[in-house]
């Protein structure tokens, strides 16, 4: 803790001691605004069925990433660190691109294969259940489904 001379300034450094709180509030309004837009879109979709769900999902993901960017860049202050530091965080985080695409497409492929070769599982998806009561006692795992 005592070897803080690794950084070029302390809290006592007067030149930059005064932390500007305006960007904090601006970030807060951006985050709040994005969340409101998400909720508005969800409500419009619930009431009218427009925009279609798959379009909306894309929008949600983009807005979520925007929110994540603002939290990391401003609240966690990463944007104001030096480039070397930013890169050691940002470059490993790129693994998520592969991580998401690989695993989600894997799940999708599994569903398609199972629907093609296991018709029972496909038929189960068309059976309606009574909305209330009774169903809690029946085993939740369908026979024939591996999980």
């Amino acid at each position: 803790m005592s070897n803080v001379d690794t950084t070029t300034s302390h809290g006592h450094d007067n030149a930059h001691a005064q932390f500007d709180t305006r960007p904090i509030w601006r970030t807060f309004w951006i985050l709040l605004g994005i969340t409101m837009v998400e909720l508005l879109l969800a409500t419009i979709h619930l009431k009218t069925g427009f925009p279609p769900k798959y379009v909306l999902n894309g929008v949600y993901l983009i807005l979520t990433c925007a929110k994540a960017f603002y939290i990391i860049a401003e609240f966690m202050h990463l944007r104001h660190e030096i480039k070397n530091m930013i890169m050691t965080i940002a470059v490993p985080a790129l693994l998520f691109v592969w991580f998401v695409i690989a695993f989600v497409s894997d799940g999708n492929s599994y569903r398609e294969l199972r629907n093609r070769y296991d018709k029972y599982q496909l038929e189960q998806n068309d059976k309606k259940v009574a909305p209330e009561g009774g169903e809690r006692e029946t085993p939740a795992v369908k026979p024939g489904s591996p999980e």
Partner: protein
Amino acid sequence: MAQAIPAGQKWWSGGKSPFNVEYGKLMMWYFLMSDAFTFGAFLISYGTIRFSSNSWPDPNEVFRAFPLMGGLHLPLVFVSLMTFILIMSSVTMVLAVAAGHAGDQKKVTFYMILTIIGGLMFLGCQAWEWTHLHGEGAWWGRNPFPNINGSKASTNFTNFFFTITGFHGFHVFSGVVINCIMLIKNLRGDFARRGHYLMIEKAGLYWHFVDLVWVFVFTCFYLL
């Protein structure tokens, strides 16, 4: 933080941290990286299972209740409140860090208390939601909610929901504990004596990370 960096600074010539951050803060960043991959693995496995299912329960049907509103159909309202609380407590945390930079011990105390209150409010909301869902018959291993097309749902939905929000809630809880320790240390004057409030910054990083994870949990469970 926003240090004055001389032009043409040679970072790798030795004698200083090439990342220009204090050791503990750097390690907090790397811990958060690994924690991000833990949460990422959880959420991505949720995505995989959801993509491998023909149908899935409708979040607007499951999460539609609000405290003291009885059976009113209010999708997304309660979770919006939770999101707002967490964003707000993140803001007070940054303000605490800012006050620490200015060396203002009283202000740090004030904003830390607000942050802790925000965290406790969020935990209270989550406790209410869990209790409510448990009352409806949802828990690990049982799922009373049908799929969106009316067919019978597997327990995957509730298993993932309780595991991931539980793991996140545990992070919020430990964040509140860490913030309480920081508050006590600040009240004792430890940071003022030390001359800097870097510990507040490190606790702040952790707290923002909790907020960050909630952004993704919110999208994955309540919106998609």
